[in-house]
C-alpha cells in the first residue's frame, strides 16, 4: 500500500509544488469520470482551498487509433474513420479529409458540390456551437439553455439525416464531390431552419448575455492574451476571443469561401465571456453564409466525372461496361494516389483543423495525421485555469470547447 503511494507521488513530483508533497495543498483528480470534463479528460489539480495552483491535463483516455487505422484502409474507405474523431464536427472532418485527398490526386469538384459542402459544413458549425452553448451553460448551471440548444440542434441533425441518411456520422462529402444530390425536401427544411434560428439565438442571448450571474461567472475568468494564444497554438474562438484575427475561411479560403460575405467576430478581452460572444456571433455569421449559399446554389452534377477516382453513377453500371469496370476497380482495389504529401487546413468549429496526407503511390495512405484544434486548445488550459477557483475552471473548460474524440483521435 505504502509502496504504491510513493511511486505515484514520485511520478508527479516534478509537476506539482513541494507544498503538495508536505500535504499543505490538496491534490484532486478531476475526471476522467466527472460531469464537467466533457468526456474523459482527466485533470490533476493542486488546490489551496478551492484555488487552483496547478492544473495538469492528462489526455489519452479516448485514444482510438484513428490515424493508424486509416493507413490500413483505401482512400475512400478511410473516410468513415474521420467522422469518429470530432463527433461534433463530422461533416467538417469529412470535408477536410476530402480536400486533402483531392489535392493529392488533383481532383476537381463541381460547383454544386462545392456549395453543398459549404452549406453542410456551416450547418455542422452551428450544430457544434449549439452543443457547446448548451454544455458550457450547463457548466455554470444554467440548465434550461442546454435543452433549448438541443431543440435547435435536433433540427440541424434532421437536415443532415435528410441528405445523408445519418444524423451524425454522415460521410456525405466524398472525394470528388458529395455522395448524391440533396432531396427536394432539403431546401424547404433548411429555409425553415434559417427562419427560426435567428430568433432562437436571440432567446439564448436573452437568458445569458446580460444575466448578472452569468456575467459574474464569466467576466475576467480564464483570460489569455493574444500573444500567449499564438504561442500555445490556440485557434478558433480561443484565439479570436483574444483579438487575433485568424480564420482559415478568410485567411486561406477553400471550397469557394471567398465568394461569401461574412465577418469574423473578434473580441479583445480573451476571457470566457469573450469566447462566448465570439461563438454566438459565429452562429449568426454561419447563418448568413448558408443563406447566401442557398441563394446561389447552382444546378448541375454533384460529383466529378473523373471515374478513375470517383465511382460512376449507379444508373450507368447496368449499361456501360467501362462504368462497371471502374466501379469494380474502385471498390475492390481503390485508386492509386501519387507519391507525395499534402496539408490542407479548414476552419472547424473549434479552430484550425488540418489534415496531413502522405501517399506512397498505392491505394492506401502511407500516413495520415490530423492537426486537431481541441488538442492545441486544451494545452492552454493550465495557463487559463491557474489562479482561479474550481468553479471557474469548469467554466473555462466549457469555454475552450474541447471534444475528447478530437483531442485523442
Amino acid at each position, binding site marked *: 500500500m505504502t509502496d504504491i503511494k510513493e511511486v505515484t507521488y514520485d511520478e508527479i513530483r516534478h509537476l506539482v509544488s513541494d507544498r503538495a508533497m508536505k500535504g499543505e495543498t490538496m491534490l484532486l483528480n478531476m475526471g476522467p469520470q466527472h460531469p464537467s470534463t466533457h468526456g474523459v479528460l482527466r485533470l490533476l489539480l493542486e488546490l489551496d482551498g478551492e484555488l487552483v495552483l496547478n492544473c495538469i491535463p492528462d489526455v489519452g483516455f479516448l485514444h482510438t487509433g484513428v490515424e493508424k487505422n486509416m493507413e490500413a484502409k483505401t482512400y475512400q474507405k478511410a473516410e468513415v474513420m474521420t467522422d469518429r474523431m470530432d463527433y461534433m464536427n463530422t461533416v467538417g472532418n469529412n470535408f477536410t479529409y476530402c480536400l486533402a485527398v483531392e489535392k493529392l490526386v488533383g481532383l476537381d469538384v463541381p460547383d454544386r458540390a462545392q456549395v453543398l459542402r459549404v452549406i453542410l459544413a456551416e450547418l455542422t458549425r452551428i450544430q457544434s456551437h449549439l452543443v457547446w452553448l448548451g454544455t458550457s451553460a450547463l457548466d455554470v448551471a444554467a440548465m434550461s439553455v442546454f435543452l433549448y440548444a438541443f431543440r435547435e440542434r435536433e433540427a440541424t441533425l434532421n437536415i443532415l439525416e435528410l441528405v445523408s441518411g445519418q444524423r451524425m456520422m454522415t460521410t456525405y462529402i466524398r472525394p470528388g464531390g458529395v455522395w448524391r444530390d440533396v432531396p427536394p425536401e432539403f431546401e424547404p427544411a433548411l429555409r425553415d431552419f434559417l427562419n427560426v434560428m435567428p430568433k432562437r439565438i436571440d432567446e439564448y442571448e436573452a437568458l*445569458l448575455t446580460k444575466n448578472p*450571474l452569468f456575467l459574474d461567472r464569466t467576466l475576467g475568468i480564464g483570460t489569455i492574451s493574444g500573444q500567449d494564444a499564438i504561442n500555445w497554438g490556440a485557434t478558433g474562438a480561443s484565439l479570436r476571443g483574444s483579438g487575433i484575427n485568424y480564420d482559415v475561411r478568410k485567411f486561406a479560403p477553400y471550397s469557394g469561401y471567398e465568394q461569401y460575405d461574412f465577418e469574423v467576430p473578434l473580441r479583445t478581452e*480573451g476571457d470566457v465571456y469573450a469566447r462566448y460572444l465570439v461563438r454566438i456571433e459565429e452562429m449568426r455569421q454561419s447563418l448568413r453564409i448558408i443563406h447566401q449559399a442557398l441563394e446561389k446554389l447552382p444546378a448541375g452534377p454533384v460529383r466529378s466525372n473523373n471515374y478513375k477516382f470517383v465511382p460512376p453513377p449507379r444508373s450507368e453500371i447496368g449499361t456501360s461496361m467501362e462504368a462497371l469496370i471502374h466501379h469494380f476497380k474502385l471498390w475492390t482495389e481503390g485508386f492509386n494516389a501519387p507519391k507525395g504529401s499534402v496539408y490542407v487546413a479548414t476552419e472547424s468549429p473549434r479552430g484550425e483543423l488540418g489534415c496531413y496526407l502522405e501517399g506512397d503511390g498505392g491505394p492506401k495512405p502511407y500516413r495520415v495525421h490530423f492537426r486537431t484544434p481541441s488538442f492545441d486548445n486544451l494545452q492552454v488550459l493550465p495557463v487559463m485555469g491557474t489562479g482561479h477557483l474550481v468553479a471557474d475552471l469548469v467554466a473555462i473548460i466549457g469555454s475552450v470547447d474541447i471534444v475528447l474524440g478530437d483531442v485523442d483521435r
Partner: protein
Amino acid sequence: MDWFMVLEWLIKSFVLVMVLLTGFAYLTWFERRVLAFMQVRIGPNRAGWQGLLQPIADAVKLIFKEELVPNQVEKLLFVLAPIVTVVPAVVIAAVLPWGPTIPFPIFGRTITLYIADINIGVLYITAIASIAVYGIVLAGWASNNKYAMLGGMRSSAQMVSYELALGLSFVTATLLAGSMQATHIVDAQKGVWFALVQPVMAIIFLVATLAEVNRAPFDMPEAEQELTAGYHTEYSGMKFALFFMAEYIKMIAISAIAVTLFFGGYREFWFLQTTWFSVDQNWWLGPIYMFLKIVVLLFFMVWIRATLPRIRYDRLMAFGWKVMLPLALVEIMVTATVLAFGLPWYVNTFASLVPFAVAVMIVDRSLTTKKQRRVSNA
C-alpha cells in the same frame, strides 16, 4: 393532561409528518414536471396518470438499492449524517399554524390547527434550521472523499453566513407583529401582509432561504458540475434518499415559514376579510390557503432553478456578508424607526425601498467596474 389531549397531539403530529413526507414525494414530481414544461420536455408521465405514481416508483427503487458504505469512512457519522439532516427538516414545521382554531369543540376540546404554539416560535425555527447544517458537514467529512469534503465545507460557510440575513428577517416580522409567537404573527397580518409592509425584507428572506435549503442558484454544496455531487457523493440507496428528502422537506418547511412570516399565514387576502372567503367564516379554508401559498412559493423556487446559473462560491459569500447583511440591518433600523414614531404601514414600504435601491446601485456598479477593468486589462 387527559388522554384525549395526548391523542390529539399524536394525530396532529402524524398528519403533519405524513403531509410533509407525501408533500416531499409530490414536490419532486411537481419540480420535474414544471422544469420539463419550462425546458420544452415532457417529464415523468409514464407511471400512473400524468406520472403521479412516479414518486412511488422512485421510492421503491431507492429502497431496494444496495446500501454502499465505502471502506474508509467514519461509519457512525456516515450513518448518522442523513438522519441529522432529515430530522430538523421535519420538526421545524411544528410551530407553524396551518389554520385557525376549529370553532366547534370535538370531544369537549377546542382543536387548534398547530402542534405547538410556543411563545418563542421564531427562535425555535432559527435554532432548528441551524442544526441541519451539521448533517451536511458530517456527511462531507465522514465520507473521506475530497469532493464531499469540499461540498461540506462550502455548505457550512454558506449556511452560517446566510443564517444571519435570515435571522434578521425574522427580526422584522417579530418587530412588526410585536411577538415571536407564530400565531400572533399571523394574526398581526390580518390587515396587511408583512410582505407589503416590508417588501425588501421579504425578498431578503426568500433569497436567504434559497441559500439555506441549498437550492439553485445557491446549490453550492452539491454543485454537480463542480463537485460531482458534493456532500452526498458517497451515499446511495435510502441514505441518499434521506438527503434528498431533507432538501425537499426543507423547501416545503421554509416556504411555510415564509408564508407565515410575510405572506399572511393561513389567512386570506386582506380585502376578502368580510366575505365568505375569509377563514373567520369558514375555518377549513385556512389549510387550503396555506397549501396554495406554499405551492406558489415552491413554483418560484423551481422557476429560479430553471432560469439562473449558479453563483460562484466566493461571490456568494461576498454577497451574503457585504450586501445582504448590511442591507438587512439598515432595513431593521428603518422598520424600527417607523414603528417607534407610529407612522402608517405604507411609510415603511416606501422607506424600505430607499436602502434597497442604493444596494442595487452598488451591486450594479461593482459589476460595471469589473467589466471596465476587464477591458483595460485586455
